């Protein structure tokens, strides 16, 4: 089980790869935007899966069914994109991995960037034949609140909060460190270059053989992106606390806070 993540394809694929495979039947492109946006234009042959549709029936079984209806079988190569700096696409890709799908990656740019590059889009919906997909839960990449509480006792576990700095200062899971999701991107790509990602972790003193758990505000999107940023440099043991801070608060778990400073008043928002 532990070696599963190593068998996974690289987390992002280049624009050129996608262009060359667009008409390939073995490839399924997933567009994670709202339906209206998708209808106005998308990468050719992409199917639409708004994140809300995935979240509405979140059991592994219903998730498998959802992907089956999109024509995704065990060996289908899946590439996911969005227009939300890769965060929503990450959450979909992570879910596929979680149900045991191995061949899934993120497009390295957003839909807007794809268009800015002058690449092809259209409004046609592809014909889809439902197929079968097996269910092999990959629980190694998932963290629950209970797991988190126990993991915190262990050495060499790093908990990363990917929300914006002010939200983190105000409330966070005790012992977490903050890497805002904006830190994860580079100009024009949804993820930093490997070199600068390594450098960021090195500066922060995060060892690449640590077990790293990411979380964000509510459903694991921003932290899903962080999951892939960490995977992009080959960190073996990364988990997503998918229900994130929203659940943590609901469960009335302990909360850390930066005290005695009125930092919100520094914001111009």
């Amino acid at each position, binding site marked *: 089980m532990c070696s599963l993540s190593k068998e996974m394809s690289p987390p992002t694929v280049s624009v050129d790869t996608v262009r060359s495979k667009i008409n390939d039947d073995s490839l399924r492109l997933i567009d994670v935007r709202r339906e209206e946006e998708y209808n106005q234009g998308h990468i050719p042959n992409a199917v639409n899966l708004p994140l809300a549709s995935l979240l509405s029936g979140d059991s592994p079984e219903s998730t498998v069914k959802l992907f089956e209806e999109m024509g995704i079988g065990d060996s289908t190569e899946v590439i996911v994109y969005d227009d939300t700096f890769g965060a929503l696409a990450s959450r979909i890709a992570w879910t596929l991995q979680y149900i045991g799908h191995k061949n899934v990656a993120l497009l390295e740019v957003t839909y807007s960037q794809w268009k800015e590059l002058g690449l092809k889009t259209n409004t046609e919906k592809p014909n889809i034949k439902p197929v079968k997909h097996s269910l092999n839960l990959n629980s190694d990449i998932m963290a629950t609140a209970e797991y988190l509480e126990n993991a915190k006792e262990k050495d060499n576990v790093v908990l990363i909060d990917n929300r*914006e*700095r*002010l939200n983190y*200062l105000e409330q966070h899971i005790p012992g977490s*460190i*903050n890497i*805002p999701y*904006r*830190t994860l991107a580079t*100009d024009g790509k949804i993820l930093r270059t490997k070199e600068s990602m390594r*450098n*960021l972790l090195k*500066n*922060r*003193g995060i060892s690449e053989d640590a077990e790293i758990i990411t979380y964000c505000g509510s459903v694991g999107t921003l932290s899903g992106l962080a999951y892939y940023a960490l995977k992009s440099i080959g960190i073996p043991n990364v988990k997503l606390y998918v229900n994130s801070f929203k659940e943590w608060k609901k469960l009335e778990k302990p909360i850390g806070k*930066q*005290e*005695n*400073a*009125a*930092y*919100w*008043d*520094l*914001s*111009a*928002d």
Partner: protein
Amino acid sequence: MAQQLRPSKSASKKPKIDWSRREEADNFAHTVKLYRQGKIDHDSFRRFRLQHGAYGTRMTDDYAMVRIKIPAGQIYPHQLEKIAELSEMYSIGSAHLSTRENVQLHWVVLEDVSEIMHGLADVGLTSREACGNTVRNVMCSPLSGVCNDEEFDTTPYALATARFLLRNPLNQALPRKFKFNFSCCEKHGMTRIVDVGLIPQVRELDGKKERGFKIFLGGGLGNKSFVGHQLEDFTPEEDILYTSIAVLQIFDRMGDRKNMARNRMRYLVDEMGWDKFKNLILKQRAVVRTTQSVIIKLNINQKPNEIKRPISVSNENGSIPDGYARWLKTTTYKQKQEEYRAVFVTLESGDITANQLRAMAEITKDFSAEGFARNGFSQDIILRYVHESDLPKLYSRLLESGLANSGSLTMASPVGCSGTTSCNLALTNSHRLAKEIQRKFLELKLDEDDDLRDATIKISGCPNSCGQHEIATIGFFGGGARVGNDMYPNYSMSLGGRFDDKSMLGVTCMRVPVKRTIPVILKIIELYKKNKQSDDTLSRWIDRIVHGNESSEIKSVEDMKKILSPLVIPPSKDDDPDFYADYGSDTSYHTMTGKGECAA
């Protein structure tokens, strides 16, 4: 819809000077590591950190504030864009513009500071010597070059001075920080409240015009403030570098390195007496002049900036949005260059979001004929060389980005230091108070009142004057007071401060609880209206009161205090719990400070 002024994206003009050194970023990252490993002691690390422009943060060692120097205040569109990006990646998604032409990123994880330094190196900026016992950012009036009253543009002199001093061994370990300020004229600078202040002047000798400066030394605001002294009638331009070096050498040699509370140069001047200090400087200058080679002349780039009005696409016959006349009147300055204006963009306490920074970058490219923006002295951004016929369009664009507040050139744009939002020394949330006052003034349209135009409000969160309260018409600095066991934030109010050719520090009037500051200010305005003379202004009226020259019912600061005192009586906590809380906080108030770092 945004009006597209130009068919394609305008290019960002590039700055003439690269202030950065990339290797300093790597060195910083490495040093942080050594510090965390316990291989460098706390005090040494702190000195190093401050030297590189990373300041401590309130109640924590985990975060820093990175102070980016903008020498002479000149900031280019691509630099604004980079700061926007860095603020989202490593800070709070907003940046803060200071009163000293710095741009500050707060709540940065100490380990990420080097990443910011790398980003700054991409666009030629630095935070080096922005803090610590060094020569801080060299300031220049945002109107230099366009001011109607100036003798000549001092911007090239400010830039050359900054360039000469940055990383210069001369100023790496002074007794204390050291500040330069170049003005355009008597009105628009702050030359008398800094260590070295310079105002351009021209004299005629044998029918030839000669450039020079009035140089003021030994001023400064702080726990104890002083107004600077003029060194001599006329300092020729070739002497300003010699003078600066002489002053730095004397301060370095004779300044107090022991008593942290009294080691700014102004204390040395005060203790020694001005005449003695002046003679020392003049003698030292003679030594510097004879012992230095010509190589150390200031490298003054007198090549004028290209002024090229961005090409406007045909006016879309757009209607002018509401509020234009008010904005035009209260935020723009007619330049000496015909048909051009300088537009002062006011920000609440100097805070600007990443998106606003990006908008400002685009707007600068689209509207400024000189292609860059300037930072001002009031936590603002100034866009110069805007053609008058482009002003309505500019107003629309600023409006879209929430940058079109009126009143930047009036009393309705108070200054507030960072206060308890990030500073270790702060006792009150001065930052938020300035925002509250600005909102109230705009709501009451007081920015449109010509009588109030030349008055100022400035607020510091402690006695240390970062908010420059002592040179404000109405100034406040924060403290705490109590009723029984219950504490509340309480500001000391001073009146009549000014920083022009009659510079003086405000006269202490009384203490005002934070939740009474706005009623007190409004009451002062009401009293002024009742007692004003024809053709009067609030600042002139207050000036007469603090000098005992007023003939109406309020003849002195004491009279003012008497009339205002009913407003500041604390209610019981049961009657008015809000009175006991600071702005931005719903918990009961208590003072709490950490160690100040200015002196490290």
